[in-house]
């Protein structure tokens, strides 16, 4: 600037610095807060991924359930103490879902419900409990009376 600085320049600088000093750093703080929030926001793609994962886990559980050897199948009301302080209780029941017609064929619906209650101690000796409800629906060809 060609003009020599004087009292006017000092006054103008002081005015602007006094007024705007309190606003410095606000933008950065707001940006940090906004990016921290968005890191935890769950978008539609996360929901899709979570749904896919749930389907895979469900499918795997169903496959395992159908491929268990008969001898190892849990018995209703059995309390089985397994090594490493594992306890597993399985309740199982079958409900009659009534007669349905599929492809002109009368079938009986059987709802097989299971609740699997498992407890174990982790490496820190904390007691972990997991309860897993499950339902399978089977159709059996109805025998004529």
């Amino acid at each position, binding site marked *: *600037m060609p*003009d020599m600085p004087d009292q006017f320049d000092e*006054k*103008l600088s002081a*005015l602007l610095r006094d*007024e*705007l000093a309190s*606003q410095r750093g606000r933008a950065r703080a*707001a*940006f940090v807060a906004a990016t921290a929030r968005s890191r935890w926001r769950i978008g539609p793609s996360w929901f899709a991924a979570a749904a896919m994962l749930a389907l895979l886990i469900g499918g795997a559980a169903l496959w395992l359930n159908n491929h268990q050897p008969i001898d190892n199948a849990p018995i209703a009301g059995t309390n089985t103490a397994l090594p490493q302080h594992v306890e597993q209780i399985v309740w199982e029941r079958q409900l009659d879902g009534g007669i349905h017609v599929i492809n002109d064929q009368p079938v009986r619906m059987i709802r097989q419900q299971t609740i699997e209650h498992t407890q174990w101690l982790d490496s820190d000796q904390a007691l972990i409990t997991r309860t897993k409800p499950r339902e399978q629906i089977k159709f059996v060809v109805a025998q004529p009376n």
Partner: protein
Amino acid sequence: MSDQSAELVRRARRGEAAAFEQLITLHENAALAVAYARTRDAHLAGDATQDAFLKAWRQLANLQDESRFGPWLLQIVRNAATDLLRRQKPTADDTALHPVPDDQPSPMLRLATEDDRQRLRDALATLDQLTRDILIMRYFDDRPSKEIAALLDLSPAAVDMRLSRGRAQLKTLLETPPSSRLASEVKSHA
């Protein structure tokens, strides 16, 4: 500075939030100056600057030339300030409520100082928008003419010319006693 900004923009575009934080540090004063030149209110200027940086982060992919982050950002700041002013409801004039530091020796001197400051604010408001941008960038941030020129798409000579004219205009306004200014305004309206 534009080289440094360009590199930071490249890193920020890859999702590096820390690089964008550095861009904020580099450009915050210029953004505050431009916002204040429009809003004439420090708090609103802070709001506009904050909104503008968040918008810039979201729209960083739209920036064509990475070396022109500064001018691009300042345009977003101008738009944010205009939007805020549009949304702002009219309120009572609170110019008498500006905080006055307590280290002044006497109430009379305090009044005189605040009166001086208000006259400076009023004088700044009479300048055209571009000259006000330039003066506030220089006096708030000590930014050299070359950098101001790059941010505002002007030549350094044009920046110096506007600085000189704006400063002279402000000094004339401030050296004129309020009573004679009022008299000349009444005369011009008659």
